């Protein structure tokens, strides 16, 4: 049984982009929070 890369699926991609953007915002929020906490 041969297996290659699964084909490109726009719907999966859209979900992936949404997930990535959410994670990025969370990471930035955490880093910003850590930074600001230095001044409290």
């Amino acid at each position, binding site marked *: *049984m*041969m*297996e*290659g*890369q*699964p*084909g*490109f699926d*726009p719907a999966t*991609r859209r979900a*992936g982009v949404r997930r990535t953007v959410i994670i990025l915002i969370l990471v930035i929020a955490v880093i910003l929070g850590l930074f600001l906490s230095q001044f409290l």
Partner: protein
Amino acid sequence: MAHASTQGHHDAHHEAPSGFFRRWFMSTNHKDIGTLYLIFAGLMFFIGGAMAMVIRAELFEPGMQLVQPYFFNELTTMHALVMIFGAIMPAFVGLANWMIPLMIGAPDMALPRMNNMSFWLLPFAFTILLSSFFLPGGAPAGGWTMYPPLSIQGGDGIAFLIFFVHLSGISSIMGAINIIATILNMRAPGMDLLKMPIFVWTWLITAFLLIAVMPVLAGGVTMLLTDKYFGTSFFNAAGGGDPVLFQHVFWFFGHPEVYIMILPAFGIISEVIPTFSRKPLFGYKAMVYATASIAFLSFIVWAHHMFTTGLPLGAELFFMYATMLIAVPTGVKVFNWVTTMWGGSLTFETPMLFAVAFVILFTIGGFSGIMLALVPADFQYQDTYFVVAHFHYVLVTGAAFGIMAGVYFWLPKWSGHMYSERWGKIHFWLSVISVNVLFFPMHFLGLAGMPRRIPDYNVAFADFNMISSIGGFVFGASQLIMVGNIIYTVFFAKRKASDRVWEGAKGLEWTVPSPAPHHTFSVPPVIDDSLLAHGDVSH
């Protein structure tokens, strides 16, 4: 087409691999020799990595914990030599061995026997180098740059280091000659120079750099040898020489050397990004010209490693401006990678993740390089952890990530099996996070004035060093995941890879079966331009 022609050439002449010794020690097969190179590079990656772990453990807290200061110096010296000459360079030569004949439709390397000798010199060269740990006076401890007079004031190890450089230099030169002859002479009919995959182009230029500068290093270390053992005065001011002369000779080799370690990675990234963007590479010709420009500029920037040695002002200015000029062709490359992804149908399998991380993190290393290129600023950064941060961004998240992207990208073609995507992704995320935890704080340490190559430091640097060490341990440990994944893929994986492996893959190497048979393209393939990534010269 090309595929068909690979099936019908089971010559009686080409014996099947037989006998362990005959197959691996007497090989003339580019795939077997490529495999040997890659295994050797992996081994050296872990030996050099183990040294780095000890270094980071010693630096975990201020004060002297684990090792003697002199042994610490041996470790920093040997870590660099093992990683540069043992891990990064052989890994690239291994990839070249495996992929260049497949990519250009050649039956093998141009000079197959010499190819075997290039490889087998390396284990012996490293036997000489690593044996110096057991000598009176220990391993060389004057830094991998071997600056006199410090380097020739240590123990017996320096002679072993010098002969190691000679042996591995012979190996590199023979390897580079072979690669040039292969690319220029062995292309299948119709594989014009400007239809070649970018990886082949970058290696052609890298091989030229190798032949041009490895002999210069050999000459430089020979002068070091005669200065220590035969009473010459090349680097002795009392005899009319100059220690700074060694630095000129060394960096005339050393600066092209850093491009030797990054240009093939540029090539790999330029293969991976189009494949996973399902789009041709943006600006193929611009990429070729940018690579050539970087190679040319690499010969006229060497003294930026020596700004604080008291060069004449005119030289400082020339080398500063020439160095900053390199940002232009490098910028072209980064722009083209991003533009290739722009509007593409992107998926993020492990090779692509490493490639994207490469583009971002290598660029960070490039930016700190521009900071270091400024003469007035460099007087501050010189010999601090800022420099360490800079070259680890370009060598670890640059060169090493490029190699990892290449290994995941081509492993299905080599082994015939798909690697575990889940573990590949775990490896990537652990690596990319920990490598930044490891090296990013070093920028701050350097700007605050922490010197390189010193086993102890002011308590003011304690926090960032501890963070850095934790990142280091996680990064070191996560590389074991890659080894596990490779072993699993080669020996245990059930999923057979298709010939093309990746949906967007283009080029001759994807027309042969997976795993690639022992002998491919014994008869030059008929090249159909639509199979090639750059069959249409106009883009």
